[in-house]
Protein backbone atom coordinates (compact mmCIF):
# COMPACT_ATOMS: atom_id res chain seq x y z
CA UNK A 1 0.00 0.00 0.00
CA UNK A 2 2.85 2.37 0.79
CA UNK A 3 4.97 2.99 -2.29
CA UNK A 4 8.35 1.20 -2.21
CA UNK A 5 10.46 4.35 -2.24
CA UNK A 6 8.77 5.45 0.97
CA UNK A 7 9.56 2.40 3.03
CA UNK A 8 12.23 3.87 5.28
CA UNK A 9 11.87 4.99 8.91
CA UNK A 10 12.23 8.72 8.36
CA UNK A 11 9.40 8.80 5.85
CA UNK A 12 7.18 7.12 8.42
CA UNK A 13 8.27 9.74 10.94
CA UNK A 14 7.07 12.37 8.45
CA UNK A 15 3.75 10.56 7.93
CA UNK A 16 3.16 10.19 11.65
CA UNK A 17 3.92 13.84 12.22
CA UNK A 18 1.55 14.92 9.49
CA UNK A 19 -1.30 12.60 10.50
CA UNK A 20 -1.00 13.44 14.20
CA UNK A 21 -1.04 17.15 13.38
CA UNK A 22 -4.10 16.72 11.20
CA UNK A 23 -5.94 14.69 13.86
CA UNK A 24 -5.13 17.23 16.56
CA UNK A 25 -6.27 20.10 14.35
CA UNK A 26 -9.60 18.35 13.82
CA UNK A 27 -9.99 17.47 17.50
CA UNK A 28 -9.25 20.93 18.90
CA UNK A 29 -12.44 22.78 17.95
CA UNK A 30 -14.48 20.08 19.74
CA UNK A 31 -12.19 20.33 22.74
CA UNK A 32 -12.65 24.11 22.91
CA UNK A 33 -16.40 23.83 22.42
CA UNK A 34 -16.86 21.36 25.27
CA UNK A 35 -14.77 23.48 27.63
CA UNK A 36 -16.74 26.61 26.74
CA UNK A 37 -19.89 24.80 27.82
CA UNK A 38 -18.58 25.02 31.37
CA UNK A 39 -19.65 28.63 31.39
CA UNK A 40 -22.67 28.69 29.12
CA UNK A 41 -24.27 25.34 30.01
CA UNK A 42 -22.65 23.95 33.16
CA UNK A 43 -25.06 21.03 33.42
CA UNK A 44 -24.33 19.91 29.87
CA UNK A 45 -20.62 20.19 30.67
CA UNK A 46 -21.10 18.00 33.73
CA UNK A 47 -22.94 15.45 31.58
CA UNK A 48 -20.21 15.35 28.96
CA UNK A 49 -17.48 14.97 31.56
CA UNK A 50 -19.20 11.84 32.81
CA UNK A 51 -18.59 10.28 29.41
CA UNK A 52 -14.94 10.16 30.37
CA UNK A 53 -15.69 7.18 32.57
CA UNK A 54 -16.46 4.94 29.58
CA UNK A 55 -13.53 2.72 28.51
CA UNK A 56 -13.90 3.66 24.83
CA UNK A 57 -13.56 7.30 25.74
CA UNK A 58 -10.57 6.58 27.92
CA UNK A 59 -9.02 4.75 25.01
CA UNK A 60 -9.70 7.74 22.78
CA UNK A 61 -8.07 9.99 25.36
CA UNK A 62 -5.02 7.73 25.37
CA UNK A 63 -4.98 8.08 21.60
CA UNK A 64 -5.11 11.86 21.79
CA UNK A 65 -2.32 12.11 24.34
CA UNK A 66 -0.27 9.71 22.21
CA UNK A 67 -0.88 11.87 19.13
CA UNK A 68 0.09 15.00 21.02
CA UNK A 69 3.25 13.41 22.39
CA UNK A 70 4.17 12.02 18.96
CA UNK A 71 3.65 15.36 17.29
CA UNK A 72 5.56 17.13 20.04
CA UNK A 73 8.61 14.84 20.02
CA UNK A 74 8.55 14.67 16.22
CA UNK A 75 8.52 18.44 16.13
CA UNK A 76 11.46 18.63 18.53
CA UNK A 77 13.35 16.24 16.29
CA UNK A 78 12.66 18.49 13.29
CA UNK A 79 13.80 21.62 15.07
CA UNK A 80 16.96 19.85 16.23
CA UNK A 81 17.58 18.59 12.69
CA UNK A 82 17.20 22.05 11.19
CA UNK A 83 18.95 24.21 13.72
CA UNK A 84 21.55 22.06 15.40
CA UNK A 85 24.68 20.68 13.79
CA UNK A 86 23.87 17.72 11.63
CA UNK A 87 24.21 14.28 13.14
CA UNK A 88 23.93 10.91 11.35
CA UNK A 89 21.87 9.41 14.15
CA UNK A 90 18.52 10.40 12.67
CA UNK A 91 17.03 6.93 12.64
CA UNK A 92 17.88 6.43 16.29
CA UNK A 93 16.34 9.76 17.18
CA UNK A 94 13.15 8.90 15.30
CA UNK A 95 12.90 5.69 17.30
CA UNK A 96 13.56 7.47 20.56
CA UNK A 97 10.93 10.07 19.70
CA UNK A 98 8.32 7.41 19.07
CA UNK A 99 9.10 5.50 22.25
CA UNK A 100 9.16 8.58 24.44
CA UNK A 101 5.75 9.50 23.07
CA UNK A 102 4.44 6.04 23.82
CA UNK A 103 5.87 6.18 27.34
CA UNK A 104 4.09 9.40 28.12
CA UNK A 105 0.80 8.15 26.70
CA UNK A 106 1.09 4.93 28.68
CA UNK A 107 1.62 6.87 31.88
CA UNK A 108 -1.53 8.76 31.14
CA UNK A 109 -3.45 5.63 30.36
CA UNK A 110 -2.24 3.79 33.43
CA UNK A 111 -3.23 6.54 35.78
CA UNK A 112 -6.51 7.17 34.06
CA UNK A 113 -7.98 3.66 34.30
Amino acid at each position, binding site marked *: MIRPHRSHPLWYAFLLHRLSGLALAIFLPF*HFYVLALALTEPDRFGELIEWVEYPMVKFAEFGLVFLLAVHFFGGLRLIALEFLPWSPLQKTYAAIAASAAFLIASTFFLSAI
Partner: protein
Amino acid sequence: MLDVRLYLLQRLSAMVMAPLVLGHIAMMIYAVQDGLSATEILSRTQGSWLWALFYGTFVLAVSVHAAIGLRVIVFETSGLRNRALTVFTWAVFAGLLYPGIQAVYAVTAS
Protein backbone atom coordinates in the same frame (compact mmCIF):
# COMPACT_ATOMS: atom_id res chain seq x y z
CA MET B 1 4.40 25.60 0.25
CA LEU B 2 5.83 28.00 2.76
CA ASP B 3 7.77 31.14 2.32
CA VAL B 4 10.41 32.10 4.85
CA ARG B 5 8.02 34.22 6.92
CA LEU B 6 5.42 31.51 7.37
CA TYR B 7 8.19 29.05 8.09
CA LEU B 8 9.49 31.32 10.84
CA LEU B 9 6.01 31.71 12.38
CA GLN B 10 5.56 27.96 12.30
CA ARG B 11 8.81 27.24 14.09
CA LEU B 12 8.30 30.09 16.57
CA SER B 13 4.78 29.02 17.52
CA ALA B 14 6.13 25.48 17.95
CA MET B 15 8.87 26.64 20.29
CA VAL B 16 6.42 28.75 22.32
CA MET B 17 4.20 25.71 22.71
CA ALA B 18 6.94 23.29 23.73
CA PRO B 19 6.90 24.09 27.46
CA LEU B 20 3.11 24.64 27.37
CA VAL B 21 2.49 21.17 25.91
CA LEU B 22 4.65 19.53 28.54
CA GLY B 23 2.83 21.44 31.24
CA HIS B 24 -0.54 20.51 29.78
CA ILE B 25 0.25 16.78 29.54
CA ALA B 26 1.70 16.71 33.04
CA MET B 27 -1.39 18.50 34.33
CA MET B 28 -3.73 16.08 32.57
CA ILE B 29 -1.92 13.09 34.02
CA TYR B 30 -2.28 14.63 37.47
CA ALA B 31 -5.85 15.80 36.99
CA VAL B 32 -7.29 12.45 35.93
CA GLN B 33 -5.88 10.65 38.94
CA ASP B 34 -9.11 10.48 40.92
CA GLY B 35 -11.59 10.88 38.07
CA LEU B 36 -12.60 14.05 36.33
CA SER B 37 -15.47 16.31 37.28
CA ALA B 38 -16.64 19.73 36.21
CA THR B 39 -16.49 21.18 39.72
CA GLU B 40 -12.98 19.79 40.20
CA ILE B 41 -11.69 21.46 37.06
CA LEU B 42 -13.43 24.75 37.65
CA SER B 43 -12.43 25.00 41.28
CA ARG B 44 -8.81 25.05 40.20
CA THR B 45 -9.07 27.31 37.20
CA GLN B 46 -11.72 29.88 37.94
CA GLY B 47 -10.47 33.36 38.77
CA SER B 48 -6.89 32.46 38.00
CA TRP B 49 -4.87 34.92 35.94
CA LEU B 50 -2.08 32.42 35.65
CA TRP B 51 -4.23 29.79 33.96
CA ALA B 52 -5.74 32.46 31.71
CA LEU B 53 -2.27 33.50 30.61
CA PHE B 54 -1.04 29.93 30.21
CA TYR B 55 -3.96 28.74 28.13
CA GLY B 56 -4.47 32.05 26.33
CA THR B 57 -0.91 31.84 25.02
CA PHE B 58 -1.42 28.19 24.17
CA VAL B 59 -4.59 28.97 22.19
CA LEU B 60 -2.94 31.78 20.23
CA ALA B 61 0.13 29.70 19.41
CA VAL B 62 -1.84 26.63 18.39
CA SER B 63 -4.15 28.70 16.17
CA VAL B 64 -1.14 30.03 14.28
CA HIS B 65 0.59 26.66 14.17
CA ALA B 66 -2.44 24.64 13.04
CA ALA B 67 -3.45 27.24 10.44
CA ILE B 68 -0.03 27.11 8.80
CA GLY B 69 0.22 23.33 9.15
CA LEU B 70 -3.16 22.78 7.50
CA ARG B 71 -2.20 25.29 4.81
CA VAL B 72 0.74 23.08 3.84
CA ILE B 73 -1.37 19.92 3.80
CA VAL B 74 -4.09 21.56 1.70
CA PHE B 75 -1.51 22.99 -0.69
CA GLU B 76 0.14 19.62 -1.21
CA THR B 77 -3.02 17.57 -1.54
CA SER B 78 -5.43 19.87 -3.37
CA GLY B 79 -5.39 22.52 -6.07
CA LEU B 80 -6.13 25.37 -3.71
CA ARG B 81 -3.77 28.28 -4.36
CA ASN B 82 -3.25 32.03 -3.92
CA ARG B 83 -6.23 33.96 -2.61
CA ALA B 84 -8.33 30.86 -1.81
CA LEU B 85 -5.45 29.32 0.09
CA THR B 86 -4.94 32.51 2.12
CA VAL B 87 -8.64 32.67 2.94
CA PHE B 88 -8.52 29.06 4.10
CA THR B 89 -5.51 29.75 6.32
CA TRP B 90 -7.16 32.75 7.98
CA ALA B 91 -10.39 30.77 8.39
CA VAL B 92 -8.59 28.01 10.28
CA PHE B 93 -6.81 30.61 12.42
CA ALA B 94 -10.07 32.33 13.32
CA GLY B 95 -11.88 29.03 13.68
CA LEU B 96 -9.47 27.96 16.41
CA LEU B 97 -8.76 31.30 18.05
CA TYR B 98 -12.37 32.25 18.65
CA PRO B 99 -13.60 29.02 20.32
CA GLY B 100 -10.24 28.77 22.04
CA ILE B 101 -10.49 32.14 23.71
CA GLN B 102 -14.11 31.38 24.61
CA ALA B 103 -12.98 28.16 26.29
CA VAL B 104 -10.22 29.91 28.20
CA TYR B 105 -12.71 32.51 29.36
CA ALA B 106 -15.24 29.84 30.29
CA VAL B 107 -12.90 28.07 32.68
CA THR B 108 -11.05 31.03 34.13
CA ALA B 109 -13.69 33.72 34.44
CA SER B 110 -14.88 34.35 37.96
